[in-house]
């Protein structure tokens, strides 16, 4: 009785204390930061000294930081375009941080709680990796913020006892926290909807007063609601299969025929292959889990689980174009590593498995199941991958490149050991990802200045990059930018402007010195046994008169060094660029802008001339969903085009928060990065690989045809050539492949099977 009374008194006392503090119902909200920083409405300030509810463990060494709340745009002098500010709110403009662990005790009534934490936008060093882990007696959660911008949230259960609720905050480098909410379990749903979600949206998308001015579009291709079966209604969900190259939109209905479409594919022995299926929810599910056991063939051989990559499609709010503002829509994009998650009624969850058939995998039908568990309800999805007795070959003359920002430069200058290791891991992981996806070239740059009469460039830095690239088989000519803008500034005391919009013709001494710079670089490159450098002085010059005159003189100055080749991102079909033709060796344009016949003619007339393509319409720059078109660009389309290289902008485009495509001057697109530094692909990236694989099937058959001809097997060669002719004649040739006039996604696979069948038939002739 007395214990109960004491407990009751203690409870009453605690409640009275709490009543004087900030609380919403029985929940507690803390805005962490300096005492004088902006305070979010209904949040209580929590600085390094603590407050009446929350106390830091004695001796905690905490730092605090606050940034101003900005709403004014600035102007980019080079492009002349406006740039939005970093949109901070009262909640995420300030934070507490530390390089050491910290303990926080909250004087809250005993009971079960959920703890929500907001962390991000630390500013400062772009190479700092922030890792924050919060633990309670009931659970933990962690996240990383890469560099100076990015918002994350943590959620964990916690239990308070008579002494309160204890949280441990730890880090591998430095941690930071903007805000905490401690919410009784019973209040969670309401607080999530009314408080947490709006603040998370403010921080991770745009502040509500800014987002109000944006228009949310619905780009979902609409299908009629299917007639749900009795079983589907009972289950509360429907599982279906759609070809991986056709997007599944967030709230799109499945088509009836997709319910019975089997999840199956075939692969050669050194190939990855996607297997996908989707779940449409007819009711809410709190937890969806997935597991996949190894696949087995009839002989008992397995495709191990380690060769089956489990992911799901994350829907992102995206802009219609990377540089547009004020409109956005929700689109399928990132292939996140699988994790247990909830699923709301009326939404899709697309599971994306990528199976690797390594060299030496015995041929056969490998079967298994993906086991879904939706709120303890189990559902099995049969899977099948047929592995073929084919080892694919690639056309070694083709260049599959990426514009790329090498993370290795951050390794040397990262501020702490963990960050250094993180950037190292990112370096190697991305190179392996690029290699495994079929890439064999990356862009790079040289920068420097003139000292003691000679141009000093960062040769050693580029050496590191070239050596790394060579480890991964990147052996193609190196697209290399160099310090033309710096040289221009020396003579003209100003910038050239984006697309050379501000350029004026420099004096002759500029061009003399440019030739000298290139000569020095080329001498060093030969001395170091580098691959050929393609000299890339300026990106995307315009067709304005001044721009073309300047570029012509620049290219001429570069070509004054014997044996070097020049590279330009410009359309060779545009009449405005005609004066450049004698001085450009590698044209790189966005569409397949000239015909195969013209390419062959011009290349035959001038050795060293090549035509490359940077298909930004397939990289996500202006659309995240042309998956089928991207496959065509990278495979059959490239084969038909006569172009020799695809090198889109860019492997990873990040501006502002890498998980927020609406902030900053340009939208993010293409590959993302996980908390541990490893790459996270997007659906378009998978289409690069699959297109390259289509090309490998084509090339393998072409090589077999030549082998047949060389061995007098002309009938067999002619039959195989007829296959290639049939495919070639069925391509609706376009400068850009995106959405229109494309084969159905299934048609690609039928043509690939046609190639595979013929390859296997011809291989038998040589007893392969």
């Amino acid at each position, binding site marked *: 009785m007395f214990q109960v009374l004491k407990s009751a008194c203690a409870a009453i006392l605690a409640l009275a204390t709490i009543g004087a503090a900030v609380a919403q119902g029985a929940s507690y909200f803390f805005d962490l930061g300096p005492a004088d920083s902006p305070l979010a409405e209904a949040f209580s300030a929590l600085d390094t000294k603590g407050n009446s509810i929350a106390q830091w463990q004695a001796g905690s060494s905490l730092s605090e930081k606050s940034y101003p709340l900005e709403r004014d745009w600035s102007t980019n002098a080079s492009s002349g375009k406006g740039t939005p500010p970093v949109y901070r709110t*009262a909640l995420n403009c300030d934070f507490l941080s530390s390089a050491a662990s910290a303990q926080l005790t909250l004087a809250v009534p005993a009971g079960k709680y959920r703890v929500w934490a907001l962390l991000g936008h630390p500013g400062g060093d772009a190479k700092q990796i922030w890792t924050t882990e919060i633990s309670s007696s009931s659970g933990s959660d962690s996240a990383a913020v890469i560099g100076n911008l990015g918002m994350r949230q943590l959620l964990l259960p916690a239990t308070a006892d008579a002494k309160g609720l204890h949280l441990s905050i730890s880090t591998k480098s430095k941690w930071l926290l903007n805000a905490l909410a401690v919410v009784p379990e019973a209040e969670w749903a309401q607080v999530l909807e009314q408080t947490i979600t709006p603040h998370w949206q403010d921080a991770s998308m745009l502040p509500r007063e800014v987002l109000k001015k944006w228009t949310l579009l619905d780009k979902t291709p609409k299908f009629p609601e299917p007639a749900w079966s009795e079983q589907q209604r009972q289950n509360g969900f429907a599982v279906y299969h759609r070809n991986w190259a056709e997007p599944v939109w967030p709230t799109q209905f499945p088509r009836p025929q997709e319910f019975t479409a089997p999840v199956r594919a075939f692969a050669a022995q050194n190939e990855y292959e996607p297997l996908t299926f989707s779940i449409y929810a007819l009711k809410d599910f709190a937890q969806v889990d997935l597991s996949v056991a190894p696949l087995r063939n009839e002989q008992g051989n397995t495709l191990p689980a380690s060769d089956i990559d489990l992911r799901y499609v994350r829907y992102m709010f995206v802009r219609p174009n990377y540089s547009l503002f004020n409109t956005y829509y929700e689109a399928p994009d990132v292939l996140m590593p699988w994790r247990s998650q909830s699923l709301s009624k009326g939404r899709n969850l697309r599971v994306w498995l990528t199976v690797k058939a390594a060299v030496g995998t015995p041929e056969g039908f490998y079967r298994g199941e993906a086991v879904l568990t939706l709120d303890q309800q189990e559902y099995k999805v049969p899977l099948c991958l047929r592995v073929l007795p084919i080892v694919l070959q690639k056309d070694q003359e083709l260049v599959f490149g990426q514009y790329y920002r090498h993370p290795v430069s951050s390794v040397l200058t990262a501020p702490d050991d963990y960050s250094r290791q993180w950037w190292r891991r990112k370096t190697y992981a991305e190179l392996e990802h690029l290699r495994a996806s079929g890439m064999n070239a990356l862009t790079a740059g040289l920068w420097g200045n003139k000292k003691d009469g000679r141009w000093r460039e960062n040769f050693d830095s580029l050496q590191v990059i070239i050596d790394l690239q060579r480890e991964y088989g990147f052996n193609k000519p190196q697209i290399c930018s160099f310090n033309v803008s710096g040289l221009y500034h020396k003579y003209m005391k100003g910038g050239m402007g984006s697309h050379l919009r501000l350029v004026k013709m420099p004096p002759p001494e500029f061009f003399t010195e440019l030739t000298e710079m290139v000569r020095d670089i080329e001498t060093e490159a030969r001395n170091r046994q580098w691959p050929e450098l393609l000299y890339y002085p300026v990106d995307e010059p315009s067709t304005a008169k001044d721009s073309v005159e300047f570029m012509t003189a620049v290219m001429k100055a570069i070509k004054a060094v014997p044996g070097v080749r020049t590279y330009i991102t410009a359309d060779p079909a545009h009449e405005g660029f005609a004066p450049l033709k004698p001085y450009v060796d590698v044209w790189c344009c966005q569409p397949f802008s000239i015909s195969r016949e013209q390419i062959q003619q011009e290349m035959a007339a001038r050795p060293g001339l090549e035509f490359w393509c940077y298909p930004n319409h397939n990289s996500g720059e202006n659309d995240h969903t042309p998956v089928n078109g991207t496959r065509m660009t990278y495979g059959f389309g490239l084969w038909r085009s006569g172009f020799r290289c695809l090198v889109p902008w860019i492997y990873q485009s990040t501006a502002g928060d890498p998980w927020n495509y609406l902030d900053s001057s340009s939208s993010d697109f293409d590959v993302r990065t996980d908390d541990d530094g490893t790459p996270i692909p997007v659906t378009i990236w998978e289409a690069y690989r699959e297109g390259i694989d289509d090309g490998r099937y084509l090339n393998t058959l072409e090589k077999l045809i030549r082998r047949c001809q060389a061995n007098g097997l002309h009938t067999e060669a002619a039959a195989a050539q007829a296959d290639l002719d049939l495919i070639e004649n069925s391509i609706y040739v376009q400068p850009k492949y995106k959405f229109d006039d494309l084969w159905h996604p299934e048609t690609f696979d039928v043509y690939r099977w046609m190639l595979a069948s013929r390859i296997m038939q011809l291989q038998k002739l040589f007893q392969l």
Partner: protein
Amino acid sequence: MINPHRCLVLLACLAAVAASAQTFQLIKADRAPKIDGKLSEEIWQQPPVIRKFFTLGVGGLPVPEKCVVWLAADSDALYVAVNCKEESMSERILKYRKKDEPVWQDDGIEIFLDPARSKDSYAQIIVSSAGVIMDGYCQSKAYGSLDVSWDSGAVAAVQTGPEGWTMEVRIPFAQLPVSDPQADWGIHIARNQRGRNSEHLTCLEERIQGFNDLDRFAILKGLDLSKLTVSLLNIDFGECLLGQNNATVVLKNWSKQTAKVRIQSSWQGKLFPSRQTVQIPAGEQVSVNCPWLLQAQDLGRSREIAIYHQGELLQKASRKITAIPEVFFDSRQRAFYHSPDQPLVLEIPIQLAEASRTDATLNWSVSNLQGQIQTQGQCVLKQSTAIIRIYWSFAQDGDYLLQLQLHKDGKTLGQASRPMRLLSAPWQ
């Protein structure tokens, strides 16, 4: 204890949003100005309505003295007068000289009007500094594109001088898709300088990324549309496929009396258009069907619809037939799996106008390269896609020919032959 330093950022920002949008007040024109580009009329001697222009995408401080605009109106039309300074008159780009050519690529002015502040549809009238007009209407900015066949009825004239040029434009109300005579309009005036130091200027103070950023248009006040009688809200030419098409004309009668409207539909240059007269009750909106036939020989011709009210041309629209799709859509798939257990299902979109294809009969056959028919069938079209199910109990891998023929009422509407390569599926 709550920290007294409470930040009201959220409330402050919301208040800013609630502040008044940019507004332009029209000058009332007691007499219609003569459209000669001289700006000699008295109404143009008043202070300009729009005095500040900003560099597109940048916002911030206005660029000094580049461009000023007057906006005036009487009961029939909107008048726009412009005075543009130009540092280098000889370097203006003036490539286009014919109506509806892509004049937006030349030096000139762009006038955007959203007659009901819908923030989704708008009219765009571009006038080059050579006086050439390109106009179009976008029904839905989010999902559609600009229809350049739409005619605003605008007339314009330009005068040039050593340091700039002036322009006058008359835009009649009657030809604009006014969906509510009481509503304010959204307006945006922009200037393109394409010569040396190419630049784009906007009259909108709020930062925009494109000229058709309708959410940020200014509000145009002072319109008097009380005399507006009939408006054309929409013309849709229909599917524009071979066969019997149906165009739709949507009209609204704003007046208090029944309005009689004559609709003429014909091929451009044809002497005897089909005519129909429509009575629109007072205050009502009607949707009128105008059937028309598209045949193969119409390729390259333009189909026109003109609407007249009280003897005056209200609006005219045309659709040039630049392409006539084949009757049988070609997916370019030439290889197919065959299986004894499952039919091969081919979905072939039929590219004929609905009235022509409905209840047409599709005969199909698959023959080998020796011409021997292996299988055949027939289906009656009830929708736009023909579904053919081919059951292969016999098939072997190899090359075949799919023949298609579409008939209705004894006439052949289309036929096609497509090669087919049959393959055993990977799963057999």
